[in-house]
């Protein structure tokens, strides 16, 4: 009896707590969970976006909460299990978001989230030391066939790793893969000539490429990037190996529909604004606005692709 009344009471209180009426939303600051380090690119993206939303929509206030570590898993889980009242939303990034699901570590699925939008991306690249004889992807494949190449990727299950595995399959080669702890080690190894090549992201190496300290031989995309128009794509070079690290914004799935619609709208408006575009350009963030449904479709496809790699060689 007692148990029952407690349960009933809980149910009641939940019922009263949940309906934050969409009409007066938001009546308090919204917490944005950033599953990464303060000052990192995901953090900067979140701050720029929320700053723009705040300016465009009086009444919206945000608090950024950085939960770093475990490749974002801790933060993703916190977004998924946050109280669905619309006052906790968060950033996600790929492929880690789906990689944790595929490797059966995550305590969430894609269904745990309502996908608001994708904001930015950091396209994959292949970099080699500046004196390397490898000038393009064909050279890379040829050299890999002739002898084992030491190729650095940023950790197992990362976007670099998946891209390298994909290239191995498409080119029919096997690399001597060297996982590093963070892109810093990759940079140091390429600049110092310790590695033959590295699969990385554009923002991590673009400055070194421009300064002539390293060479980016391919952008892993089907179209050239406006931030680096002279870097040839993998498609141009005949290898359909594409990889990009996206950074999107999501809310817990069970949030009231009307609130979600409001969030979708303000985010969409901010993404389209010139002020946001200017801030992103200054902060070395590459924008790739995608609507919620588009981004969800992208995430589902990415999860299927990652699953295929995982099934062949689990980590």
């Amino acid at each position, binding site marked *: 009896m007692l148990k029952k009344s407690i349960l009933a009471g809980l149910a009641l209180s939940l019922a009263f707590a949940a309906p934050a009426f969409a009409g007066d939303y938001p009546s308090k600051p919204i917490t944005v969970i950033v599953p990464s380090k303060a000052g990192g690119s995901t953090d900067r993206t979140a*701050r720029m976006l929320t700053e723009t939303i705040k300016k465009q929509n009086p009444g919206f206030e945000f608090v950024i909460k950085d939960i770093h570590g475990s490749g974002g898993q801790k933060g993703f889980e916190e977004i998924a299990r946050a109280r669905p009242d619309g006052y906790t939303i968060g950033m996600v990034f790929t492929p880690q978001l789906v990689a944790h699901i595929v490797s059966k570590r995550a305590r969430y699925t894609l269904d745990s989230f309502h996908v608001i939008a994708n904001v930015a991306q950091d396209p994959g690249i292949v970099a080699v030391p500046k004196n390397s004889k490898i000038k393009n992807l064909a050279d890379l494949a040829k050299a890999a066939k002739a002898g084992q190449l030491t190729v650095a990727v940023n950790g197992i299950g990362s976007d670099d790793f998946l891209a390298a595995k994909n290239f191995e399959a498409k080119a029919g080669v096997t690399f001597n893969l060297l*996982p590093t702890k963070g892109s810093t080690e990759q940079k140091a190894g390429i600049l110092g000539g310790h590695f033959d090549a590295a699969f990385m992201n554009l923002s991590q190496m673009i400055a070194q490429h421009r300064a002539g300290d390293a060479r980016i031989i391919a952008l892993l995309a089907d179209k050239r990037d406006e931030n680096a128009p002279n870097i040839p794509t993998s498609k141009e070079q005949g290898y359909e190996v594409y990889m990009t690290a996206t950074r999107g914004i999501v809310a817990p799935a069970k949030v009231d529909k009307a609130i979600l619609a409001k969030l979708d709208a303000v985010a969409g408006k901010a993404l389209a604004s010139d002020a946001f575009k200017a801030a992103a350009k200054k902060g070395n963030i590459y924008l790739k606005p995608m609507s919620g449904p588009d981004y969800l479709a992208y995430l589902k496809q990415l999860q299927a692709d990652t699953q295929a790699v995982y099934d062949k060689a689990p980590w």
Partner: protein
Amino acid sequence: MFSHVMAVLQPYSILTIIIGTVAGVAIGGMPGLTATMAVGLLVPFTYTMDPALGLMLLGGIYCGAMYGGSIPAILLNTPGTPAAVATAIEGFPMSRKGKAGLALKVSVIASFTGGVFSVFILLLFAPMLARQALHFGPPENFLLALMGLAGIVSIADENSSLIKALIAGLLGMIIAIVGTDDMSGSLRYTMGYVELVDGINFMPALIGLFSMIQMLELAGLRRTHKIDMSALHKKQKSEPLPKGIFKFIALGAGTGTVIGVLPGEGATIAAFISYNVSKRISKLKELFGKGNPEGIAAAEAGNNGCVGGSLVPTLTLGIPGNSVAAALMGAFIIQGMIPGPDLFTQYADKTYPFILSMFIANGVFLIVGLTVAPYLARIALIPPAIMVPVVATFAVLGSYALNNAIFDVYMMIAFAGFGLILKKLGYSLEALILGLILGPIAEGGFSQGMIMGKGSPWIFFESGIAKVMWVLIILLLVPPLYSYWKNVAMVKAPPKEALDDLDSLNEPE
């Protein structure tokens, strides 16, 4: 260059630097709050600030926090940052002898010298040094970690329990296995805890092993230990620095700067290596571990030397020298200043004032340190009945504050309990910490080296740098092993009292 100097000497700039440095000292002085965290948290706030001022603020915090870590290390045996562990080994025994004031003075002067030296190097030789640092690859990183680990043997030779020190060091490395295996991506002994995916957090471990154990021991004393207060009553100024201390400061400053320049290495390893080397060359070897100011001098000059050093590859190549420098790099990028040659040409009007401001930051903490040291030194006199609960509270808060995670508090308590048992059994906790901190660095360098060498360990002997490092490692290892062997062979280890005897200090080298 003149205009850059003037930019730093503006009243606003000076005020910003002072605020940053003092805040840095305070943050570094709190167990659990590290320089990385402070800089990381403040980077977003500099977004809306004037770029030059924002960078000066962060630079001040970096310099201040590196020094600040030594204060609780000396007074409470609680390293404020992992880099201050070696300082605690020497500083706390000095506090117990009533020499806290001198220890603090040595630490601030050494920190200042190390810091200023490294900023000079950064200002004058950054591009050239950065190129040299690139020769350092994973195999050399492994050897550097080995050099640090050689300290375990040195810890042993004074307690003459080599086996126990080695076991403790090994235990540390075993504990450090927990977490993700970077080479395969698989999880090792995380037992389903997401909190353990990145491995054991150093700070809760340090707080548990140092401050908490210290407090447990104090609370467990039958009688309160009398601290010699007479030394404190003497005027601070009248206490001269120990003779020949500058040799050790210079050693630390040099080691710290060099190690700081290497990408990915940190202040902790710099402090330990300069501490260990100074122990080898000191004439007062026997005093090490019992309160030798030379150890403090080397360790503190070492970890502050890392400040300028770590910025060398960060600013010139965009490769952060350590985690604080990585956070600082975020501050540059957010202002649209991408590290690389551009910083010294296009953005020279912001980069040079930033570098120059760190001279002032070092000066600020020198003044702060010298002025408040005599008052701070009195903390060592607080009776245990007050000290124990206060420090224990700070230990819990500090562990929690790191990630806002209660898990870290349990971790800290577990380490305190486990460490207390080890300590009572005569195992060295310093060796355990060395293993815990350096184990993962050694593992990373070793496994990456083996992959680069395609399975052949020969790669660890290939480069010229590697060969030199092997010689250094042997030089660090042989003397303590030899003296240990001599002690064992003679089976008449000198009684402990003999160590305090002055005669025994004058042994030939």
